[in-house]
């Protein structure tokens, strides 16, 4: 075989393989949906409790304009949730990452903050909800604080771990160049910690979204978590499932955007 033929043969094979895998994924997803639809139609799953995929799709378009029975249209719920989660998440990054970086670098600061931190860390964010409600009442402030806290912890921990991992060789080298401690912190420590820090941000995003849903279920008047909780009261499994799908979709969307930002900032990283 000539070289050209070899290259073409390999390319063809790669294309065929990826088509095959894509087909399998397609079958996986659609097979699941079709099996679901069929099960409800055939009566194997009770239609009172389990709506069909087609019903849910129809409902999506209805709910965009219909505020019953939970008090608001879909768009309002989505916005309500997004508002809170983004505020809490961004605040957590702005406060948490510098805190973690400083704690990782300056030993005195670390000794001061870590006992407090170690005590607060094992307490799951969800159990802070009642305390926060006692303290701040029911409302935006409480929800925001809980979301903030659940995102705050991983940001701090990962920034801390990330900067602690800074290569000692680089630090020593900078010292021989005459850099001050702060300069080394700023120019070497912080960039070195970026990979771990971003991993922490990813976890923080997942945490905030999950905690928000929980917080809304416990104490809110609008938002996706509230929506699905309410609809349990009203025995509307179709809206619940719609809500679940929307929650999942938004979660994926936010993660996707974060990934794009991460790839841009960490362009120099070796990709596997």
């Amino acid at each position: 075989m000539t070289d050209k033929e070899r290259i073409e043969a390999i390319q063809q094979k790669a294309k065929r393989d990826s088509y095959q895998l894509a087909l399998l994924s397609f079958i996986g997803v659609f097979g699941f949906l079709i099996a679901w639809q069929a099960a409800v139609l055939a009566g194997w799953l009770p239609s009172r409790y389990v709506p069909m995929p087609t019903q849910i799709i129809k409902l999506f378009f209805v709910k965009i304009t219909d505020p019953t029975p939970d008090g608001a249209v879909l768009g309002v719920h989505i916005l309500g949730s997004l508002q809170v989660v983004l505020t809490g998440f961004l605040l957590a990054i702005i406060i948490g990452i510098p805190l973690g970086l400083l704690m990782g670098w300056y030993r005195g600061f670390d000794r001061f903050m870590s006992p407090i931190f170690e005590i607060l860390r094992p307490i799951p964010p969800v159990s802070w909800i009642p305390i926060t409600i006692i303290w701040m009442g029911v409302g935006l402030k409480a929800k925001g604080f809980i979301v903030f806290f659940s995102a705050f912890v991983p940001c701090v921990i990962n920034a801390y771990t990330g900067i602690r991992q800074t290569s000692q060789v680089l630090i020593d080298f900078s010292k021989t160049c005459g850099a001050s401690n702060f300069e080394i912190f700023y120019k070497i420590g912080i960039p070195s910690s970026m990979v771990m820090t971003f991993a922490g941000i990813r976890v923080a995003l997942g945490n905030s979204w999950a905690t928000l849903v929980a917080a809304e279920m416990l104490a809110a008047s609008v938002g996706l978590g509230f929506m699905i909780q309410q609809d349990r009261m009203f025995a509307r499994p179709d809206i619940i499932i719609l809500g679940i799908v929307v929650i999942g979709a938004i979660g994926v969307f936010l993660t996707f955007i974060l990934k794009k930002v991460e790839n841009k900032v960490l362009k120099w990283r070796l990709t596997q």
Partner: protein
Amino acid sequence: MDSQKIKLELENISQSYIVDNKVTDAVIDISFSVKDSEFLVILGPGRCGKTVLLNMIAGLEKPVSGRILLNGEEIKGSDRRIGMVFQKLALMPWKTVMGNVEFGLKIQGKDKKTRQEISQKFINLVGLQGFEKSYPHQLSGGMKQRVGIARAYASSPEILLMDEPFGQLDAQTRYAMQNEILRIWETEKRTIIFVTNNIEEALYLADRIILLSKFPAHVKEIYEINLPRPRDTMDPEFLKLRKIISENTDLAL
């Protein structure tokens, strides 16, 4: 006068890879034969393709053209009669020394008693008796390589391939291991194909040296080394050969 049997034969072996939709040659038309029970050294500058060559003999890669014949028959893919000792850590960290050495036998399906007996023999041969229950992370670099050698020997291969096995060791350990491998080879004679980029090591160990060019590799020269063992690195004959080979070696910058 060459009355020795030919163990392994490489006929016109070539390898190339497709990188960024372009064909890059790695090994070009290599042919040589390996005699039974000889210590053959393949010497080449860094990154010239010697590992690729060894991988093809081991069956880890398929050559783009050419044939490999073991005892006169063509072999395809990895053959149990060819064993390999790797350079970088290929010991399984989750297994003890005994567990690692008996690995090949376990794959072959031998029962526990037989496995342990055979493995113990080779653990003793490489001088690691007493360490059967240790884990790799508890061993030094030289000891780890000895486990690798014992593991390769344990499944009774006819040919042993060694891919720069002492490359990661410090100088003292390296010299000690060179003597070790010669002692092991004298005790349990097998055909050994040993790859290195170090001229002294090659001259110290080899019956014959195959000198490869720089990347992409082809055979530059084959040297017969008839010095008696143990060899003296300060011997004028040794140094003369060293000069000849060194001048013939391509630099790999």
